[in-house]
């Protein structure tokens, strides 16, 4: 699942994952916090870290996979330097979010769930950021942006390419 060139040594993944797990095992229901921390550690959740987590929590590999694959926010491959999420939910759609999406896609030459060839940005759809009053909305890394228009898109592109 990982693109080639970003492969990390499997033994290394296991050791680093185990180190991450150690600080969460005291929690009740530690799986989600561990997955967050693993994503923080690697930038994504490597498939190789799942058996390590499963063994530590005495759950099956399948269960760990089921949880990771359920949540869109757990990445299965490294993202670009920036992650741009464009809201595609109803309110934003009614305010022209698909036009904005098309604009962004054309500019970067990628579709949703893809990373630009220069590794600068990964594009994701998102279904409601709670910013309906300022639709169409987006989120660049951890910053939310409202009332997107062509100008705002240009600013985002500039920011991303800097």
């Amino acid at each position: 699942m990982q693109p080639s060139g970003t492969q990390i040594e499997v033994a290394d993944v296991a050791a680093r994952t185990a180190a991450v797990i150690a600080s969460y095992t005291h929690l009740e229901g530690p799986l989600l916090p561990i997955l967050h921390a693993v994503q923080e550690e690697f930038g994504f959740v490597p498939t190789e870290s799942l058996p390590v987590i499963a063994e530590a929590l005495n759950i099956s590999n399948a269960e760990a996979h089921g949880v990771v694959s359920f949540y869109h926010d757990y990445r299965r491959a490294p993202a670009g330097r920036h992650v741009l999420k464009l809201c595609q939910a109803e309110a934003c759609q009614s305010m022209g979010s698909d036009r904005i999406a098309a604009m962004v896609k054309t500019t970067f030459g990628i579709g949703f769930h893809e990373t630009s060839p220069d590794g600068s940005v990964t594009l994701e759809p998102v279904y409601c950021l709670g910013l309906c009053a300022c639709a169409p909305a987006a989120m660049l890394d951890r910053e939310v942006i409202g009332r997107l228009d062509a100008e705002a898109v240009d600013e985002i592109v500039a920011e991303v390419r800097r």
Partner: protein
Amino acid sequence: MGLVHEIDYGTPASKSERQVTLTVDGFTVTVPEGTSIMRASMDAGIQIPKLCATDMVDAFGSCRLCLVEIEGRAGTPSSCTTPVAPGMVVHTQTGRLKDIRRGVMELYISDHPLDCLTCAANGDCELQDMAGAVGLRDVRYGYDGENHVFAKNRADASTNFNWMPKDESNPYFTYDPSKCIVCSRCVRACEEVQGTFALTIEGRGFGSRVSPGMHQDFLSSECVSCGACVQACPTATLTEKSVIEIGQPEHSVVTTCAYCGVGCSFKAEMRGEELVRMVPWKDGKANRGHSCVKGRFAYGYATHKERILNPMIREKISDPWKEVSWEEAFAHINSEFRRIQYQYGRGSIGGITSSRCTNEETYLVQKLIRQGFGNNNVDTCARVCHSPTGYGLGQTYGTSAGTQDFDSVEESDVIMVIGANPSAAHPVFASRMKKRIRQGAKLIVLDPRETETVTSVHAKADYHLPLKPGTNVAVITALAHVIVTEGLFDEAFIRERCDWSEFEDWASFVAEERNSPEVIGKLAGVDPEVIRGAARLYATGGNGAIYYGLGVTEHSQGSTTVIAIANLAMATGNIGRRGVGVNPLRGQNNVQGSCDMGSFPHELPGYRHISGDAVRNIYESLWGVKLDNEPGLRIPNMLDAAVEGTFKGIYIQGEDILQSDPDTKHVSAGLAAMECVVVHDLFLNETANYAHVFLPGSTFLEKDGTFTNAERRINRVRKVMSPKNGLADWEVTQKLAQAMGLNWNYTHPSEIMDEIAQTTPSFASVSYDFLDKMGSVQWPCNEKAPEGTPIMHVDGFVRGKGKFIRTEYVPTDEKTGPRFPLLLTTGRILSQYNVGAQTRRTANVVWHAEDVLEIHPHDAEQRGIRDGDWVRLASRSGETTLRADVTDRVAPGVVYTTFHHPDTQANVITTDYSDWATNCPEYKVTAVQVTPSNGPSAWQAEYEELSKRSRRIEGHLEAAE
């Protein structure tokens, strides 16, 4: 005769004793509190449409077909997740419900292929049935949109990324994602019934898919191929390959699995005489509708090309076999056995009964020996597995059998597993045990290895005592030390049920400092605090149940360990009610039965000693002969006598002593010294290499009879096809007896059971009619217990007062030293069974193609051994070679292997040390050395040559194996 249809009530039964009455579609129904509306309706004969519900797993409420309307309540709740309430008025069919259901079905069918006519599930598809039930007539959504059904998009023929190809990696079933409706029944069956958690739903929404492991194929995932998911699947998504190949069965017969001592009930689903599939039977009281990979799928050996179908004889074992008629074979055996007895004496021949055959067949073999051979030289393979159980439990409690039924585990609070790995060897019981552990029961495991039972997901052992092989007695006595010195024993129970002075004597012994965890812990390599913790938990944690296996019995102190276990249960009052007890996990399907049937040289059926005049009289008057009042020879004695030249002929039914018994070279020397070895088996097994007469056997599918499982349950075995070799095994023994001049005229195995019931008090009320009526019954079954005995020693021990016996630890003579510094212990794995004669002839070999040697990384590194290397394994008895598996499942200093494959011959290594009381061999401890190697040992090469030579059959181009 048609298919045995089982009602699917949709949700599991409630165990509540309070009753609730409600009305469903105008009918009044009374059911236990907590029952779902769906189940209550089914009780009244009203079937509510459903897809995601089935009574093997808990309600889930996802398919939205089983909605109902309840008067006084808003909306349309799902009937599977809504419990009944007093006075509730339910309507299962209203205009509103019909519309909803039809709409839901339309959505399902809009993403499901319409190839019903060519689909393997045609005729056995719940989706098809439900489409019919809700009156689906058209699908407004069409098939052109997003779907999982077609490999190419319908509009532009581009690749459909939602489509996934069929997974055919498992040898026994296929997974076709295009037919999946994501009802989660397979996932829930894997979790709730089997307890492996190998399946999940990955993704979400329209992208939800069933995924084995981490988006893997079934074979490479954690799946153990128990078949529970296939059974649960309502569509053709998970389908047996045999059904795809053959088609739907047209009739079925309920019978009993012939693998392990759990004794699962199955429906053999047939097309004519062709077996289509084995499906676990929900009414089976041992398995409650569950199965494992062996019973469910590994029956292909019955029709394997290597099966021998004609009797054969040869003069010398170096000659090729010659096929003869049955009459010739019987005449030959008769003349040889009579000649030998004339020449060497009446006691120069004997026989071995089989724990693989039925009670009736075993009874006949011992009868043939006692009545026809005129001696008591009869023994059985229980000699090499559970004979210490017979002795130990007999001495302490008064019966040679487990105290509980398997259902009892549902009420246990603390489960102690000693020297057993049920996840591999008794998988269906393991699933039931793990279910209880997931509900909160605690688990203690005593095992040198970190087995699957220790580390199961969601059912990890609370205490694992990784004791050094051979120290069972010491460690169990240390557990008792803690219980006694910390005052955790149950005084009231002991005073009422046992002899108090015997208890005091025992207590003073175990309380000695030398039996404390601190002293024993060092010797056994176990943390004393772990021993103390485990003892406290067992004594104070509620209902404590002990399950044990061959890791207990197959030691020089096997009987002592059984006694130590019995002491432990008595001291804590864990005997005589549900949820507690002492339970041997029997290895083979009918090991309990073969012991019950008088297979031991010193006992007549029902464990009655041969020296008792009254008991002998029963048989003497019935059989019209005088019986010898002295016990005959045990298997090891027969072999010793053969080497000495006083034992010359043997009839071995369904047992491969050459491969399964210890010290192979001694066994082969004994067999080679005999003049007439008769082997009665399905295949030319290893023992047959030394045989002069081969009688082809029949499989459990080809005969009627009964097996008795580890919970003393007598289960019916029913014939589903005619014997390929022409005669069922009981007929073979009968014809042999007739050839030897005995007047036997049984026309059906039921008549043999009638004779058993007539002569054996614990079987007095058993008959085939009774078994057909009851399904199965646990002995004792007689006037005192007309419906059998699920739990023993309820109001008092069978022997009167329970007997405490001191258990002095005596280390085995088999010790490690400079030449042999490691301890070898042996066991089995899930997919293979015993000597592998059956499972090696099935697709189960994909999981285990050869025996490997587990060795700790530390020991491996010292010897320069890497994972997968060939290694030489040597003991004082012999040597063999196999591949190394470097793992920390075993402790440093301990190595482990299985004995499923004849080319490894692990028993070349094991020694002739045995249990002091019963001669049960010490398989579990052998001092060995492991060194790198580059190929088979001299013995392996020599043996392979012998095997090839001795399997030649005249007129056949190639050897049978």
